[in-house]
């Protein structure tokens, strides 16, 4: 075994075996005994552990070493090139790990290198932007370095959309309560008392989160809220006209039937 052990890697990642099990969706027993019991684990578990912890599979199961070192073809890279590439990758990883931009001497101290080696690695990184993959080296004045996402892959529209995205958050209980109220009594004609509901503790925060996520919106003031067309479509209150318009597709209307209320005793079968 040449690399760090699973236990060391877990410690570095700040994970317990229980948490690793949770992250990988496997039972913690499958990662609780690092060696040699990992030998008998399913391949998928080994793959997931190696992937999650950036660990070489042969460090998990030493028997894999001869198999993995067998290469299909000799790539013919010279050792010097490999060293330079490795240093550049180390610098990129160190900058991505650091919480703030680092100078070359800070980098050298952190990595235990001589300053010329750190400077050469920074220069190599600058000269080979592909090494960073989605990240690129940035100089922060006066002479510190960091990495940020590349700017030449995404379009401006995509970047703006990503900035505006709030993520696929799961509705929590408070938000569900507000959304239900918005559906049932969000507007005055519905006869509800939405302003009184708004006075409840925690309501404002949940309402703000729903508005930020675009699930509800207010048009005429805070005492009335509307549910977005997307929510109404997903909950089967409307058809997909608004999306069809947005996508420039001609909508094909379906006849709409308003069923009796739930309390009426007739269900969906009545409309079949």
């Amino acid at each position, binding site marked *: 075994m040449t690399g760090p052990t699973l236990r060391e890697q877990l410690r570095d990642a700040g994970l317990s075996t229980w948490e690793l099990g949770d992250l990988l969706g496997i039972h913690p027993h499958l990662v609780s005994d690092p060696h040699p019991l990992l030998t008998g684990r399913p391949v998928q578990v080994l793959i997931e552990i190696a992937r999650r912890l950036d660990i070489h599979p042969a460090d998990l199961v030493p028997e894999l070493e001869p198999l993995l070192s067998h290469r299909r073809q000799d790539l013919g890279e010279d050792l010097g090139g490999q060293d330079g590439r490795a240093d550049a990758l180390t610098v990129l990883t160190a900058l991505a790990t650091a919480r703030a931009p680092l100078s070359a001497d800070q980098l050298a101290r952190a990595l235990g290198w001589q300053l010329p080696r750190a400077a050469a690695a920074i220069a190599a990184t600058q000269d080979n932007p592909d090494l960073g993959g989605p990240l690129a080296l940035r100089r922060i004045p006066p002479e510190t370095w960091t990495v940020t996402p590349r700017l030449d892959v995404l379009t401006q529209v995509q970047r703006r959309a990503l900035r505006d995205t709030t993520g696929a958050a799961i509705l929590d209980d408070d938000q*569900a309560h507000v959304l239900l109220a918005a559906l049932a009594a969000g507007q005055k004609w519905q006869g*509800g*008392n939405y302003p009184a509901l708004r006075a409840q503790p925690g309501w404002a925060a949940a309402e703000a989160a729903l508005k930020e996520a675009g*699930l509800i919106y207010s048009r005429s003031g805070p005492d009335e809220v509307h549910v977005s067309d*997307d929510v109404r479509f*997903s909950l*089967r209150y409307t058809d997909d006209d608004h999306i069809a318009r947005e996508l420039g597709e001609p909508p*094909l209307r379906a006849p709409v*039937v308003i069923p009796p209320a739930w309390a009426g005793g007739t*269900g969906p079968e009545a409309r079949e």
Partner: protein
Amino acid sequence: MYVVDNAGDDLAAVRHINACGGPAEHRAVLRPTPGAGDVLTTGWDLLVAAGKPPHAARREHVTALSWEYGQAWLAGSGVTDLIIDRAHLLTRDQAAAAAAAAAAAKAGAAVWLLWGTGIDPYTPGYDGAPHLVAGARTQVISLWEFYQRLPAAAPPLPAAAEPGEPDDWPPLPAADFPTFLAACRRYLPRREFAQVARLYYDTAEAADAWLDTYGAPRDPRDGQLTPRFEAATAGWLRDSAIGPAPCGPAALVRLRAVQAALFVRAIVLSWRPGPLGPLPATRLPGNLTSQVAGALQTAVRTDAAAATALSAHLNQGPAFFGLLQLSDVAPDGSAIRVPPGRARPHRRGITPGAVGWYGQVLEADERSWRELATAEPILIPAHARPLFAAHLAYRRESGAASTDPYFAHPRDPANKPATDVLRAAIRSTAQRIGLDLPWLHGDDCRYGADIGLTWRGHSWPGERGLVLARTGPGQDQTITPPPPILPARPQWISDGPA
């Protein structure tokens, strides 16, 4: 009983027997071990005919019970035709035992004896002459007539309309249920959206129908969802709504539709996929798949197969399985219904009414019990029904009455509970077929499987990160969302992809 004249040992007869199918087609082919004249060996042959590996009886230490188990498995599979190839190899006792097993397995079952030598089956006094087995002259038919009377098995039924492989589905959005369908509409090509939307609307409408049938889900006193509704929902999700989904993406679409249908009735079903690992949707379908049921069919012990199947289906250990009675199980194994009023043992070492951590344990036990003992029956998937029917037949063969336990201690059924035996049997069976059942891990693993770091008990929704909010949103009965305007399904979805 028929004697098929196969004096020429025709190769076509072998081909036809192979085409007749196996227990899944309600047929079994018994091939006697050449040179073995004892009844016990033929019992092992019968187990092989019922689909068991030749070594299975020895592995499970039940070699002496091969006839009992063989007969039970024939009954469980509903075998109507037992074909005995090269029946002239059987002694009179062996043939009689095989005929008796077929008759006991199913009333009116036919036994087909392929008589493969030139010996006249009518020869009086010949040891093993099949007409002596029946006690009367047996009808002799030609191979041609055999082919006509017992044609080859029908080809398998066409695949279900719902695509069953994950690759059949487009990548689905991670949006929660309030915007899931809109995200699908916006980001999927029209043809793929139509596939998603058809399943979505069908499932949502099925949920509407189920909710209408169920009645009031809330306690009028405090507005909370009743424990009975919670258990019924778990059963319905497991047996009808999500569990039968053939793959993860299909299950995810079904789940989103169910969440939407429940939400407009102020019932919040949350899905927390975070702790489920990569591809969390693949955790949603039921665990008792056709592959698992097929693997369980290779077990000889019917109690081990049925208990493992039930554990996999319910996602709980056998703590309460000993309370099942024979009358609770449908004769064909299609359903199990335990009356909710049946008394159950309480966990030892915890005082009833305890609070805190112990209270959570008791609550989890109560939830597991309610998922087993509900007013609505537990529906067993079609591919697993023979497992339950076989054990029912075995228990009836053993002389058990309708009110006797369905799972009994094998050596002392009257005095010892079956729970520990069942737990061991489930563990060994699951290990043999390569199934990891987290809810059967030992006490050192009390934090459950792979969800969270707090003890959570075991339940079907819990294993999938599903949480039904009994309190909180929806409890405020002044907030009643309007019913959806239906049908909002775009016409082109019903008509098929554009």
